[in-house]
């Protein structure tokens, strides 16, 4: 188990190095494009050159990259080209925003899809069909449309929840919950729809197996069969889907953060890309890779725990 975790860690570090290197050379652009964005339409070439020199953008690209890499290894990700804020400080304030909506989104998705999936699998009939229709609709609805509808109904019309903004839980727990409720719902709808189908299918398969029939014949109570035996066996594929969704929701968060004006990683990545803010973009890429690798590792470990057939090597 420890060797497995170490191997995954090493893999994760190589991935960070590869992803940030690729990002740097993909988004790197001529210094005058960056300084033009900073200094605006009226700047002369002399103004642009002076700014580039002040920022060190007139150095060869390889020198700039190695400079960044040397700093990053020691935890110094540099400073945004466009503000006085350090990349580390930007990440510290933006990561919790995205993690809030994605992690809570996954939790809500896990909970709701488990309930709906089991209900559909066990009850069948009309309930199954309703759940299936809702799942198809849920998967078909674009999350930005869901987000906009939620804002119109719950924020603008009924004034129940805020239309925009983020409140950190340190500031106010109820404010935090209010600020992430609509984004989480918008983010989770498609995820719930997909996971419900997964849980339903897995449960139907498991409930149809010989050992479940044997348990029933032995007089074990239905509730125990359902939750102690069937669900545990159906959980493995659902966990895999969940881990994929966690990563998928990070992508979805970009749109959701925009609709709700949440200052998260998605908004930061989009703005940094549009402006050519290379240091910020590299920081976002690095932290995203860390999160993705960590989540995959945790899901692998959880899979090994719920399913003895899985061996971690």
């Amino acid at each position, binding site marked *: 188990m420890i060797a497995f975790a170490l191997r995954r860690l090493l893999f994760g570090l190589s991935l960070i190095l590869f992803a940030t290197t690729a990002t740097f050379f993909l988004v790197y652009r001529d210094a005058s*494009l960056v300084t*033009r*964005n*900073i200094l*605006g*339409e*009226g*700047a*002369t070439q002399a103004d642009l050159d002076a700014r580039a020199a*002040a920022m060190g953008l007139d150095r060869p690209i390889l020198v700039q990259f190695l400079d960044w890499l040397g700093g990053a290894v020691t935890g110094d990700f540099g400073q945004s080209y*466009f*503000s*006085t*804020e350090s990349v580390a*400080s930007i990440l510290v*304030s933006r990561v919790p925003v995205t993690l809030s909506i994605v992690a809570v989104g996954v*939790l*809500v998705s896990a*909970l709701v899809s*488990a*309930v709906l999936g089991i209900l559909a699998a066990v009850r069948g009939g009309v309930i199954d069909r309703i759940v299936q229709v809702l799942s198809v609709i849920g998967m078909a609805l674009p999350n930005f449309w869901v987000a*906009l509808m939620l*804002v119109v109904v719950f*924020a*603008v019309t009924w*004034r*129940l*929840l*805020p*239309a*925009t*903004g*983020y*409140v950190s839980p340190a*500031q*106010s*727990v*109820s*404010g935090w*919950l*209010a*600020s992430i*409720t609509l984004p989480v719902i918008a983010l989770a709808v498609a995820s719930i729809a997909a996971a419900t189908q997964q849980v339903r299918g897995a449960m139907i398969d498991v409930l149809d197996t010989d050992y479940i029939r044997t348990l029933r014949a032995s007089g074990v109570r239905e509730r125990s069969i359902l*939750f102690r035996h069937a*669900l*545990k066996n159906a*959980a493995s594929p659902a966990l895999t889907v969940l881990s994929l969704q966690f990563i998928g929701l990070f992508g979805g968060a970009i749109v959701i953060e*925009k*609709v*709700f*004006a949440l*200052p998260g990683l998605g*908004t930061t990545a989009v*703005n940094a890309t*549009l*402006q*050519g803010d290379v240091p910020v973009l590299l920081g976002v890429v690095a932290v995203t890779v860390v999160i993705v690798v960590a989540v995959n590792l945790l899901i692998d470990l*959880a899979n090994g*725990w*719920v399913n003895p057939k899985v061996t971690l090597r």
Partner: protein
Amino acid sequence: MTTKFAQRGAVLAIAAAVALAGCSTGTPAPEDTGAADTEVVSAGTLTIGARVDNNSFDPANLEIGNRVQYWQPVYDTLIRLDAEGQPQPNLATEWSYNDDGTVLTLQLRDDVTFSDGEAFDGESVKANIEHIKAGTGQNRFMVEAIEEVVVSSPTEVELRLSEPVPPLVSYLGWVAGVQASPAALESGTIGDAPVGSGPYLYDAAGSVRGTEYIYTKNPDYWNADDFPYEEVIVRPINDVTALVNALKTGQVDAALLTPQVAGEVEAAGITVNTLSVAWVGWLLADRNGTVVPELADVRVRQAINHAFDREAMVTAIMSGYGEPTSQVFNTASQAYDAELDEYYTYDPERAKELMEEAGVDGFTITAPEWSGPWTNLFPILKDQLAEIGITLEYVTIPPDQAVAQALSGDYPTVFFPLASASAWQDIQTWVAPDAPWNMLGATDAELDQLIEEAQYAQGDEQEEAFQEVGTWLVENAWFAPLFRQDQVFGTNAETTVTMQAQNAVPSLWQFRPAAD
């Protein structure tokens, strides 16, 4: 494991339901961002939604446009510009030029202190101007011609110039006149921790960068009557739809919007305040005919001006929030002449006649095109030029490179929206031989003479001279302007505002509670 998940999920669901119920009773905690906060926010707090985040509080890197919203609470300027853009006393109480306009003498207030306790005086003015000049910021050009700042006394300074700069006094109402504590300028931390003498103090501990910037009232401010709010909050929200929702629900009291959403917010009870700052249209950069010889003929450039149906564009593209025009200068500019707005009318027949007189039977021009707010306009422009025999070929470029590509000098013509400021600044940016937006370096001896006369004139004579430059540019069709674009600034029922000439957003002292 699944059971544990379910338990945690249930707790969360209950908590969310409690929060939901709490909000619906209309009594959220003060720090909640719930829409029910509206009453609290508007009682003594002005919350402004800003389209861009702050970049820096360092005076050397301050910007005008949207970003004044971040620095005007903390910094005073030497001059204050009123709503029409006319200079009024502020930290400088009086000012005067010498005969040839190369020395500007300023009399200063003697009762102002910075928030670190340092007194404001002539030495502060010198330190601030030298700090901006030593930097590489966007507005360094405003102080570039100041060769020396001579401190005659604590309440008098002379700005000695290398050449006359007609809008220098106006510049002192913007970034060039910002006054920060000299000690703070040397501290190296002023980018994050502003120390000024302004009406508000920046609450760094309470603010969250990228989310909200909080400013509390400066108890020692010398001119408190002009700033009625106890607190000012600026929230960066760059998505217009999100900004509209924030305005509708009372999360912000005021915000810069776009013409496309003006109708929607008006229907929701938001007041739409408008003022035109930018012009939208063509820079006929190859007016000397270097790449496309036909463009050297003034009749061809005039024909291009007659080809466009400006009225229809304002209606269809701008939802009516704009004014057709044939000139590039804004209505508050010294060079503005109302009669020039309708100099070129939509007249394809006249355009064809002019082309015929010039002996031109159709030719091709290229221009950059990019996706964004003008996507719907590009095909219209192409069709209307085709009607008079000109083939317009677009080169598609990435939106983030629009400015760089437009300025590259690779195109004989460029369509662009450009903000107009003072006449002199506009001429230096678009018209002068070395202006960045005179991409192919076109020159004309008569025009150069008119510009020089305007630079050295003063008072009414200067205004007349600038208007002559404006007239010359229209008659010689150096540009093909289409319309002035209205800035659309929304305010809720609790807030009133007066728009600020020559800037995208109003200045802080233009805001008032509606009942005031």
